[in-house]
């Protein structure tokens, strides 16, 4: 029995020395990654089926077919989030990818500078110079987007870039206009690196 106690004592002493060696400092390397993110959506509060509806007609005898409250729509907001690599900027471009603009008319799109959210939310030059939308012609709507978010509010006050569509007669081709209903075009917004 006595020899057994001596063996335990000897094991404890040896184990204690071993434990002391395990306290040596070690360095660990953590690889932290933030994914490249660019994602967006368009909200259309108050619009049935999320569809923009524009109507053009002469409002007074002798007057041109002209813009009216029904030929302009500002019920859509573009919201996006972006985490961009260093020194990388994005842009959002638009084009008509399906359907075509009726003869004798033009469709323009502009955006009002986003003031919600935070970060490098880009800029738009379209407030003063609206984009003339044409089929398969891609044009920039917002440029210089870095890491940012616009906000996600879908109730007043809304977040993001307010989009304004204007449907109007082509002043050079008014005579080509004929009446029609339900001509639908698809406007596609794409966020890509600049």
């Amino acid at each position, binding site marked *: 029995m006595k020899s057994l106690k001596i063996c335990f004592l000897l094991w404890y002493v040896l184990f204690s020395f071993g434990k002391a060696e395990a306290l040596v400092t070690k360095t660990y390397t953590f690889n932290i990654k933030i994914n490249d*993110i*660019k*994602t*967006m*959506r*368009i909200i*259309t509060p108050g619009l049935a*089926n*999320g*569809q*923009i*509806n*524009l*109507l*053009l*007609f*002469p409002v*007074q*005898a*002798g*007057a*041109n*077919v002209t813009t009216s409250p029904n030929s302009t729509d500002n019920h*859509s907001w573009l*919201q*996006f*989030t972006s*985490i961009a690599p260093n020194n990388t900027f994005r842009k959002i471009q638009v084009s008509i*990818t399906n359907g075509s*603009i*009726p003869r*004798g*008319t033009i*469709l323009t799109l502009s955006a009002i500078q986003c003031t919600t*959210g*935070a*970060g490098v939310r880009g800029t738009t030059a379209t407030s003063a110079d609206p984009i003339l939308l044409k089929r398969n012609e891609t044009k920039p709507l917002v440029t210089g987007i870095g*890491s940012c*978010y*616009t906000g*996600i509010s879908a109730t007043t006050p809304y977040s993001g870039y307010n989009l304004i*569509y204007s*449907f109007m007669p082509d*002043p050079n081709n*008014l*005579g080509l*206009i*004929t*009446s*029609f*209903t*339900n001509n*639908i*075009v*698809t*406007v*596609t*917004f*794409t*966020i890509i690196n600049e």
Partner: protein
Amino acid sequence: MSFQSRCVFILGFFLTNSILAQKEVESVKLPVQMSIPSAASLSLTGSDLQFSITGKGTEQIISTSTVRSVWINYSSVVDVNSTNAISVNLSTWNLPAEVAITLKVGPDAGAGFGQTGTPTNSIVLSTYPQVIISNIGTCFTGQGIKKGHELSYTWVLRPGFDSEILTEGDLVGLRVAVTYTISSSK
């Protein structure tokens, strides 16, 4: 950027991203529907315009003093392969049987745009509608005098009546209503 601003940015980013990035979307589509209904309207203007109403047509009260200085303005949007036409008729009158009124429609003044109509030759106003401007496509004439087509009225004795029976005084106070209507000729 202060510590608080950084916290707000990070919190906002993750809140936004958690909603928007459930499925990362780099492209979104939005349908835009456009419509232009067929429409046509006309109006009369001029210093000698005594009365006009809108409704089925535009009505003008004319008297022997109504000679020129009346202009008809119109706007029109037509269907494919369709045109509009403007017709005129006497709607109320108290004309002596021997008196007739002729109407001459001038060419479009060119103040508008598009396919304005073609005026017909002079007509004698009657109670049944007669086309005075045809082949109107999508167009507008402009609004006001010297825009659109000038209307010229002439009060005349019908052939065969003796001008000595009807004196100039008999024409004083004569008033008739003339109705202009624009409609599709499809």
